[in-house]
């Protein structure tokens, strides 16, 4: 038997979708007339920054929007049936059965008081019409497929008994187990580490291909898109500004936004002597959306027409469609060469700003019974030096102890043993500037606080210093009277940097300073940090899991794994010729924003999860996941040794 719908290639067709949020400040149009199609078995990536409406759009397809949001218009045709006009009851039959969903945070989308088995078995019974036993066997089969070890045992676990990566696998198994024809995945790997992210993406790709399901993948990570998608839709301010096949989008993007976005990402082999191209300004406030093209304020080729009419998607070369009045986008204008990055004063190798010797930090467990009182061994003997004017990048997955090292450096925690010497003062730039500011203080008082605490100068000289600092980080003195909630993410991070510089520190520790920011403003902050380093000659400790950024900004890199430094050396050397298998795996896992390079890579994702820092292995900490591990690695702990001129690694098999 063949249905008409089985012959048609189109699975999902979205026409003129509009989603509105009724807020106190008025109606916000989060999705403003979005149209696209997904064919059977096709993987479409929806790319955009926060506030671009990508998640609101995905939620609108199945009417899963939270309260003030509502679908205000348009059609969502799944095999010709309009989901937008279906009753809630009819739609419920489609959710899960025909369209599966995977969300960003698996902890909050799994019921914490229900065993995995209950959450999986009942939908399978209902949707596939199986008996309880058959459904349970099916659930176990899927858990096995998504790589959960011991699926027969783990199916009766509670979500909190699993790691983040495991939970996300369970979510995927749940989404796929009812054999949906479309899977909507909203930032499914954003909360995960790169090595786990690589595993999950690979698995999603294989499993959807195997099941013949189409997939809509929402992300802000262009590297993942290159690895994963057939087609890409780029969203900006509630509209799709560019749509087309992944190769064409990366090779010859047509919309100025896509073009600039691709240029702002530091590349794997880029020289570090030019500044990162940056997109000026910040994304528009969706509550006061500008007339005409929403991108025009940040666009180098905007014309008078852009201010009057919003462009529709029109066909371009390479099967692309772009919504721009200027044919060719930024290529229409002569391309200005990026200015050279300001070069830091030659490093004075003899002066060391920070010296850490054999640093150890164990957090005592709070267990009531003695047997529960095991220490979390967060940092296990780290020795590092930061020279004057040097930037040290620390990379590693969550739980590797990189943030604990930062807290110890700042004196926020006391080390269990070991020594820290700092020549001068250390200051910190936190990951999320919003939560690191007191919401009841003005920007002026936030920047003034370090000066006021130290009784630095009098009122007038402090005011002058604050003004100097705020202009130094590229903001206006007019910003000083505002509150943190009135600034954008990028502006807040500039304020955080100004505050960190107030007391003329000798070293600034930046813990993931760009990870809470939108892609288009990240480059601005990275350029600012690079400029400050050159101008002020201060040292930086730059902690991040974003390897491309660390490579761009750092002079030296330390790679951490389970509280130890496993590799250390000049940034380019560590990247181009990694010696430790973990460093290599980490670099291999980083998605490269170029589909041709991605296709050429042999990504054998690192297997397994991090061992628990509660009971660390006796031998090499990495042995449980290492492809080269031998019996010796499991019993003998390798020490950090110098191999090449300046590179050090802790591996028995490093050459």
């Amino acid at each position, binding site marked *: 038997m063949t249905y008409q719908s089985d012959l048609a290639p189109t699975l999902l067709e979205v026409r003129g979708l509009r989603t509105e949020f009724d807020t106190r400040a008025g109606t916000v149009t989060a999705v403003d007339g979005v149209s696209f199609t997904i064919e059977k078995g096709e993987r479409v990536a929806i790319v955009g920054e926060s506030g671009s409406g990508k998640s609101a759009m995905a939620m609108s397809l199945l009417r899963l929007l939270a309260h003030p949001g509502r679908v205000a218009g348009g059609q969502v045709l799944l095999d010709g049936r309009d989901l937008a006009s279906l009753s809630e009851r009819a739609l419920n039959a489609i959710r899960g059965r025909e369209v599966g969903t995977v969300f960003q945070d698996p902890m909050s989308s799994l019921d914490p008081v229900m065993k995995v088995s209950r959450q999986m078995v009942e939908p399978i019974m209902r949707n596939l019409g199986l008996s309880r036993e058959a459904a349970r066997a099916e659930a176990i089969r899927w858990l096995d497929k998504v790589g959960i070890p011991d699926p027969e045992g783990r199916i009766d676990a509670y979500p909190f008994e699993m790691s983040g990566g495991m939970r996300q696998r369970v979510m995927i198994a749940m989404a796929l187990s009812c054999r949906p024809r479309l899977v909507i995945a909203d930032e499914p790997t954003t909360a995960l580490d790169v090595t786990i992210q690589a595993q999950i993406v690979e698995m999603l790709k294989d499993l959807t291909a195997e099941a013949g399901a189409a997939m809509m993948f929402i992300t802000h990570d262009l590297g993942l898109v290159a690895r994963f998608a057939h087609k890409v839709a780029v969203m900006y301010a509630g509209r799709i500004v560019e749509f087309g096949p992944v190769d064409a989008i990366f090779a010859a993007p047509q919309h100025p936004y896509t073009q600039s976005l691709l240029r702002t990402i530091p590349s794997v082999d880029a020289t570090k002597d030019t500044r990162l191209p940056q997109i000026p300004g910040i994304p528009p406030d969706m509550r006061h959306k500008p007339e005409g093209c929403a991108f025009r304020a940040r666009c180098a080729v905007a014309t008078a027409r852009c201010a009057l009419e919003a462009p529709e998607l029109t066909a371009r070369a390479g099967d692309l469609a772009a919504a721009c009045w200027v044919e060719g986008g930024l290529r229409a204008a002569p391309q200005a060469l990026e200015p050279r990055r300001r070069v830091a004063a030659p490093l004075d190798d003899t002066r060391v700003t920070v010296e850490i010797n054999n640093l150890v930090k164990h957090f005592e467990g709070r267990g009531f019974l003695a047997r529960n009182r095991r220490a979390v061994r967060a940092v296990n003997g780290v020795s590092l030096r930061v020279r004057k004017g040097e930037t040290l990048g620390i990379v590693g997955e969550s739980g590797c102890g990189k943030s604990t090292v930062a807290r110890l450096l700042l004196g926020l925690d006391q080390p269990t043993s070991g020594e820290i010497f700092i020549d001068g003062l250390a200051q910190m730039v936190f990951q999320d500037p919003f939560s690191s500011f007191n919401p009841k203080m003005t920007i002026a008082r936030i920047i003034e606080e370090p000066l006021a605490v130290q009784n630095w100068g009098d009122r007038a000289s402090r005011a002058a210093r604050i003004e100097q600092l705020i202009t130094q980080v590229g903001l206006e003195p007019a910003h000083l009277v505002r*509150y943190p909630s009135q600034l954008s993410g990028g502006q807040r991070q500039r304020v955080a940097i100004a505050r960190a510089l107030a007391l003329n520190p000798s070293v600034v520790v930046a813990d993931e300073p760009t990870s809470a920011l939108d892609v288009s403003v990240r480059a601005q902050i990275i350029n600012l940090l690079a400029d400050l380093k050159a101008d002020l000659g201060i040292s930086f400790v730059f902690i991040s899991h974003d390897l491309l950024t660390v490579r761009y900004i750092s002079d030296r890199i330390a790679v951490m794994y389970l509280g130890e430094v496993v590799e250390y050396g000049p940034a380019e050397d560590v990247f181009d010729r990694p010696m430790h298998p973990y460093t290599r795996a980490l670099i291999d896992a980083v998605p490269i924003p170029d589909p041709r390079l991605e296709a050429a890579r042999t990504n054998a994702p690192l297997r397994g999860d991090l061992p628990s820092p509660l009971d660390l292995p006796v031998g090499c900490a990495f042995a449980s996941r290492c492809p080269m591990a031998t019996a010796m690695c499991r019993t003998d702990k390798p020490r950090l040794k110098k191999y090449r001129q300046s590179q050090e690694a802790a591996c028995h098999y490093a050459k």
Partner: protein
Amino acid sequence: MANETVDTAARRPRPPALALPTEGLWANRKVQVALMILVPILALTALAPLLPLQAPLETNLRAIMQPPSIDHPFGTDRMGRDVLARTLAGVKVSLLVGFSVATIALIAGMILGTLAGFFGGLIDRVVMTVVDIFLAFPSLLLAIGLVAIVGTGLIPVIAAIAMADVPRFIRLQRSQVLSLRSRPFIDAARTVRASKGWMMTRHIIPNTVAPMLVAGSIASANAILVEASLSFLGLGIMPPAPSLGNIIRDGQTYLQEAWWISTLPGVVILLIAFALHFLSDGAREELDPRARK
């Protein structure tokens, strides 16, 4: 979401210092209703001496138990006293008790709760043990006990009710401080070597004031009811000095013949308590947008 990235020029500057969202407060429907009740009552109470009424204590044996009329809008009682005049005098006592109790509880709760929450350890254990003991008694019972020990009158009543309320405020303040203490901006203050006193006065307390004020307005409503109950039981304000509680007690005996003596002051208490609850509800909605449905 979009509200993170804001076109800053278009936003109005927020009021400084405690940054209570006052504009939203005035626009809140519940707050408006509360004020529509409270403002006339307050005005009448303040203007009572100027109104053409008998003095609250003045008796007129030729006009006892008169029903409400133009001369005596709330009627007269068994000694020919004007019930409206006595009610307004009673409201003055009630509001005084409500305001004093809330202020004492707020200040004491703020200080002890902040110290207990911020320092933890021994001070926390001592304070919280005492708090838990106090919280084990119903507040009216506790107030009755305290009045029995200290004696009757305005000051003892205020002290007794405040004693029963302070532990609740310590609890609230401590829980707020505990959650603020682990916020990154406290770490940020520590990285610039801010002292503990600095962190408490600049970072912790300003962020706790708004919820404490909300709790304060509920506490004042509660205090007014407890004072009325005490006076009704003959343990609060002693007659002939008027208090809403003892006026109602006076009239209770004559409920059949002269319903107005008890009923009308009772309605006034009801209105005040209702308005104060509405005020705190509305304020809470403005301070915590999630409370709004």
